[in-house]
């Protein structure tokens, strides 16, 4: 199973900035192993972000997003104690969801 994300969410001046680090290989499918065999593509394709259970942002990613991806976005409103949840699904169908509290 994939490792947990690191989610930071901070409210200030009427908005909440969310910063996320995800643990994922983001293999492009263009690299070769030492034996010369193509390493199959393996990357996060879709991401969704929720604030208190409501989806606020979704994203589609290609394999050119860096390994161990970073995502930052800004929610209108939000306050300390609100819950931010991030979910992803990769091209192999693997999923991961994590949650953090706005500070």
């Amino acid at each position, binding site marked *: 199973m994939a*490792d*947990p*994300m*690191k989610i930071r969410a901070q409210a200030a001046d009427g908005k909440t900035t969310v*910063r996320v*680090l*995800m*643990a994922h*290989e*983001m293999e*492009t499918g*263009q*690299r*070769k*192993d*030492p034996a010369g065999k193509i390493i199959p593509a393996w990357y996060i394709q879709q991401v969704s972000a929720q604030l208190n259970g409501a989806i606020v942002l979704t994203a589609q990613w290609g394999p050119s997003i*860096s*390994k*161990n991806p*970073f995502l*930052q976005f800004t929610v209108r409103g939000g306050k300390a104690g609100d819950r931010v949840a991030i979910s992803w699904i990769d091209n192999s169908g693997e999923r991961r969801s994590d949650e953090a509290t706005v500070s």
Partner: protein
Amino acid sequence: MKRQYPDWQGPRNRPLEAVRRHLTRVFARAGVFAAGVGLLAAGMASPCCAQSKSPADSIAEYRKMLADDNPAELFEAKGEELWKKARGPKNISLEACDLGKGPGQVAGAFVSLPRYFADTGRVQDLESRLLTCMQVLQGFDAEQIAATPFGKAEQVSLASLVAWIAAQSRGLHFDVPQGRTEERRMYELGKQIFFYRAGPYDFACATCHGDDGKRIRLQELPRLTANPGDGVGFAAWPAYRLSTGELWGMQRRINDCFRQQRFPYPGFGSEVTIALGVYMGVNARGAESIAPALKR
């Protein structure tokens, strides 16, 4: 492994005018006509301030943009879990592991390693000491883990553990002990290895790390014969490597230095690698640790 991207000799050295023409063609093909091209050209005609900045300033800016969100944190979190989790043939956690400050004492341990351990009768760095704990406490085969390639299996666990343990000394100052004869012998050995020239290129560690203010390409090379400063050199490893997207401990850092020195392969936790750790660590006395850092 390099990504298999085409070797493109494009706008790196291409004049801006050529870039503009190229872009105009691209967008024209896409159906952008007069108005769009006009705007585009207007935008391109005043390329931003970038050109006046020095490469060093630009690199510093690049590093700053990444600094606040270091993926090393993902490894720290995993390392903490691995430290506390019952694992290995004996199904026991590492919480009784003695890193030099007493069993289970993690805070401050990193900045006084490598050091002499009475139970093994030798000087050990963080990674070789962790191997001892994994073998003695958890029943893992230390030799087998040492022989495992970096980035695979239990070497990944080691890297994560190292990230978390180092993070528990963040902001502390290096104080690698020299009280015992064996610690001083290792310092002297490390110094000799540091200056040891060999291989087809005649390189030693000192070739690149013997003077202040030197670079390979754009990479600054810390002078490691003295304290290079807070969070520089020995005080910046382990680190998350952007190039591989992996966490590198000092063992892997030294290993790749020897590779680029065109030397044969140093064993994981071998005497040479630990002696170099003692030499660099003692020289870095007083330097503030920022590990795990973020490195190219």
